[in-house]
């Protein structure tokens, strides 16, 4: 197809005229359709709505917040290292590109550019240099107090006599629940068929559970809160599980979905994969007691994803005892119970 330019008698090219025509048509449609758009129904306000609810105006985070975990500073150090390496490379490469764009722009009489094979030595050099930098970054972050292996695999021990604060975290669409073991130091067993909206949101077995073997642990004294409370200066170990929604009447169940536990202040993020419970650990630096932080979901999980958040409080011993109703140091669980998934519960009931 060959495009030919035609000039009208008026002196404007037909291409220009067609472009202007499209603009005029578009503007006309927009302006004349405005009355149709404005026919929106106004909401009907009931007489007794008394409050103008304003969200607490948290300032948007413009940069990373203060790191409160013991490995948070190390994560930030790694961030800055990568930032400067890539930043310098970026400035050099983009600066050169900009220079070349201007320096060798089209000019009348200038010889047209021709494509060459390149320079092998140069290309090998800068490829090897990049590889070396990447390997360096990958290796140095593995070990140390803030190393990847420490954060992702260096879980503290739990059990009697251990100073580890242990919590089970359940994520559903679209809420976080934090299960504390209670005075008996044992986590109650969880079954989807025990879920009661509002009163037993994670489905802890309580009293006479009625579940068949395996052995069931009573969850009556467990504490389930919609916020995470932890002590400062102590290892905290979390087990993360994604649960589905269960309705007793009529019997129905929705599968668990992906969520992600994200705390910006802890520099910690971990996906919750359906049917694959996993763990996290952290230790809050001393000096943060009494502060409130935030946990948000960082993996799109449905229409309520943006509202899926929870408060995260660091408390002193007295505050923690008041919140939980027991002394956590005397009730450190020996282990996490096995997670029973919905399809396994059906087999239990057979």
């Amino acid at each position: 197809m060959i495009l030919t330019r035609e000039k009208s008698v008026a002196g404007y090219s037909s291409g220009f005229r067609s472009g202007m025509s499209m603009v005029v048509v578009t503007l006309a449609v927009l302006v004349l359709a405005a009355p149709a758009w404005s026919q929106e129904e106004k909401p009907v306000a009931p007489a007794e709505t008394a409050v103008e609810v304003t969200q607490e105006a948290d300032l948007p985070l413009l940069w990373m917040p203060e790191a409160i975990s013991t490995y948070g500073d190390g994560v930030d150090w790694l961030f800055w290292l990568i930032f400067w390496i890539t930043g310098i490379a970026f400035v050099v490469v983009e600066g050169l590109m900009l220079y070349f764009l201007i320096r060798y722009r089209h000019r009348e009489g200038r010889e047209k550019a021709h494509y060459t094979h390149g320079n092998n030595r140069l290309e090998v050099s800068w490829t090897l240099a990049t590889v070396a930098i990447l390997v360096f970054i990958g290796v140095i972050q593995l070990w140390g107090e803030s190393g990847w292996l420490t954060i992702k695999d260096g879980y503290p021990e739990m059990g009697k006599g251990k100073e580890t604060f242990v919590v089970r975290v359940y994520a559903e669409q679209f809420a976080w629940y934090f299960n504390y073991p209670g005075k008996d130091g044992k986590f109650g067993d969880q079954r989807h068929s025990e879920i009661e909206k509002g009163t037993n949101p994670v489905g802890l077995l309580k009293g006479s559970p009625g579940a068949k073997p395996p052995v069931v642990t009573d969850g009556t004294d467990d504490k389930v809160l919609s916020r995470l409370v932890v002590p400062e200066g102590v290892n905290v170990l979390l087990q993360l599980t994604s649960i589905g929604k269960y309705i007793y009447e009529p019997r129905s169940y929705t599968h668990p979905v992906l969520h992600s536990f994200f705390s910006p202040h802890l520099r910690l993020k971990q996906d919750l994969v359906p049917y694959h419970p996993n763990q996290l650990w952290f230790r809050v630096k001393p000096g943060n007691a009494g502060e409130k932080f935030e946990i948000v979901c960082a993996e799109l999980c449905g229409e309520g994803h943006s509202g899926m958040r929870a408060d995260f409080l660091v408390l002193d011993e007295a505050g923690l005892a008041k919140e939980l109703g027991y002394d956590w140091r005397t009730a450190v669980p020996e282990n996490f119970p096995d997670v029973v998934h919905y399809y396994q519960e059906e087999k239990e009931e057979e």
Partner: protein
Amino acid sequence: MKVTRFSPPGVVVAVILTAGLSVLSAGCETKKQAKLAGGSEHGKKGSDAAASSDPTAAAGDSPGAEPKEKFGTVSLSGLVKVTGTPPAPVKLDTSAKPECGKQRQALGLGELMGEKIVVGAEGGFKDCIVFISKGLGRYNLKDMGTYGHPAEVVIDQKGCQYVPHVFAVMQNQEVVIKNSDPYLHNVSIPALSFNLSMPDVGEERKPKFFKKTGPTACQCSVHPWMGAYAFVVKNPFFSQTGIDGKFTIAKLPDADGTYTVEVWHERDRKLKAPAAQKITVKDGAVTEGNIVFEFTYKG
């Protein structure tokens, strides 16, 4: 190949056509507007029914109109109660959503308590639906309409709570979903693949919304403790119990007959439901008198 460009006359024609369509659409009222006060459809069906002099001639399907089927004066009363020791309602944790606490305080609604099992002082069981399930086969149920019940059922979201928590709805009733809270709620009804986001105060009307009989659960995606049940019935002979557990099904046909009465509650695994009961209408009265349904709590 030459490319054909737009011609000035063509542009003018396009603009005129677009303008004409826009003006026409701006002048038409939407269906919703037609039904609201001031709209052309407001009160149309009601006024038609009132104008008719024959009470049985109007279509039974129209809300508020007299049905074709004649109804009687027989009344069935009774009680639904619970034996055993069900747990007392517990306070729900709404701290994850601070707007709820503020709204409830502003509206003077008090603490939000669980509503699943609510038992009165005398053992009466709240929020049970008692309904006639069998025996009405000789009547044309479609012509019964919503006789004796309002044309519409309203489910409201107020103080992060569904009001009412349980409601009975007929298949041909209009459902009005309201949001009285000035913040986001999301009405999710998985059984109907229904998902309605309501970011502010407002309402949505759904005519003949529920079709399948039996219980349908509603929940809010934003506030996880919020839940409600719609119990869908196909005839107008039903009643919902209050805190005293009492129910009354009115206007049963005067003709002799035998009916099966059932009771439904959202319950849980520990609550054993009572069996259906048969009642007999003879000489204009229920021969069994007041009937009692008893749920048993094992736990």
